[in-house]
């Protein structure tokens, strides 16, 4: 089993900036970045009304299921998906095999524009994820995992 995935404040900040730019440049309603296992990482735009935790988990399940379909068809991962709604459309893209980028958009935008802007954003995000991976591999500073004691864990479960 490999170690945990991590995210550091500096890269989180940069990823948030990429999400905000994508949101603006694509005229989207909202942009979400999600870990492949369904944890929300970053968001931009009109997310106030959205249950981000549920959306993240379902999107990750959706991507996993689509990945399963691609395996059966002996295809490589389907790197993007598009769901057309009456008012809101959803564009889903894999980012460097590590995360899932979700763009929610309506009639103020178009699939073509979203695709175009997503391409640039995923390249930037992929670079940032590489940076995180390098940093995590060479992490010399204190890790939260090294600081946790058995007593801390026990305390969490005391009634």
């Amino acid at each position, binding site marked *: *089993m*490999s*170690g*945990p*995935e*991590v*995210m*550091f*404040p500096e890269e*989180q*900040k940069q990823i948030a900036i990429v999400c905000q730019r994508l949101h603006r440049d694509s005229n989207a309603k909202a942009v979400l970045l999600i*870990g*492949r*296992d*369904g*944890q929300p*990482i970053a968001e931009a735009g009109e997310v106030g009304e959205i*249950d981000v*935790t*549920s959306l993240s*988990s*379902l999107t990750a*399940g959706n991507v*996993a*299921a689509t*990945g*399963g379909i691609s395996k059966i068809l002996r295809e490589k991962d389907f790197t993007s998906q598009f769901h057309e709604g009456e008012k809101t459309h959803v564009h889903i893209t894999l980012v460097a095999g590590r995360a899932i980028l979700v763009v929610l958009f309506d009639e103020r935008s178009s699939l073509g524009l979203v695709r175009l802007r997503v391409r640039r954003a995923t390249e930037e995000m992929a670079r940032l994820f590489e940076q995180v991976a390098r940093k*995590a*591999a060479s*992490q010399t500073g204190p*890790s*939260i*995992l*090294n*600081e*946790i004691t*058995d007593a*801390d*864990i*026990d305390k*969490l*479960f005391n009634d």
Partner: protein
Amino acid sequence: MSFINYSSREINCKLVYYGPGLGGKTTNLQFIYARTSPEAKGKMISLATETERTLFFDFLPLSLGEIRGFKTRFHLYTVPGQVFYDASRKLILKGVDGVVFVADSQNERMEANIESLENLRQNLIEQGYNLDKLPYIVQYNKRDLPNAAPLDEMRQLLNPSRAPEFEACATTGVGVFETLKAIAKAVLTELKRGGGG
């Protein structure tokens, strides 16, 4: 796979409830959902058939408090227990941090229990995991039923490696939180032991 966000100061972990169909996996999550305070839980999602059998998964996000200023968030998933949903079960095991095996104590379900446990072991291997090295709890559910098999017999068949185990009745909640606490604790302990690599 656990996800540690140093920016939002969160530790996220994935727990999967596995076991034969109609064994009580969804009931475990429903009881946890019903008895958890609103601020500690998110919405419970059930992707189920019209007859309320799990089709893909149930999902329940829970916050269990803070450790050293980091929020601990656990994402609880169930798998569909029916044999023919194996492809879905494999997907849900991806990135798992800890597994609860919910066994059905009824005598006539023993073969289904054994088959499901074998299936769990095999599917974990395919994902690069070893059940003997993963945080793992066995729950003997439906202990209240008159046709429940003797515990010793179940233990021999389903838990030869003596993983931590609990007797339960998920409909009334007996053993449900004990199981959850044990798996969550085992996951955090394993995470700490791994030390982040």
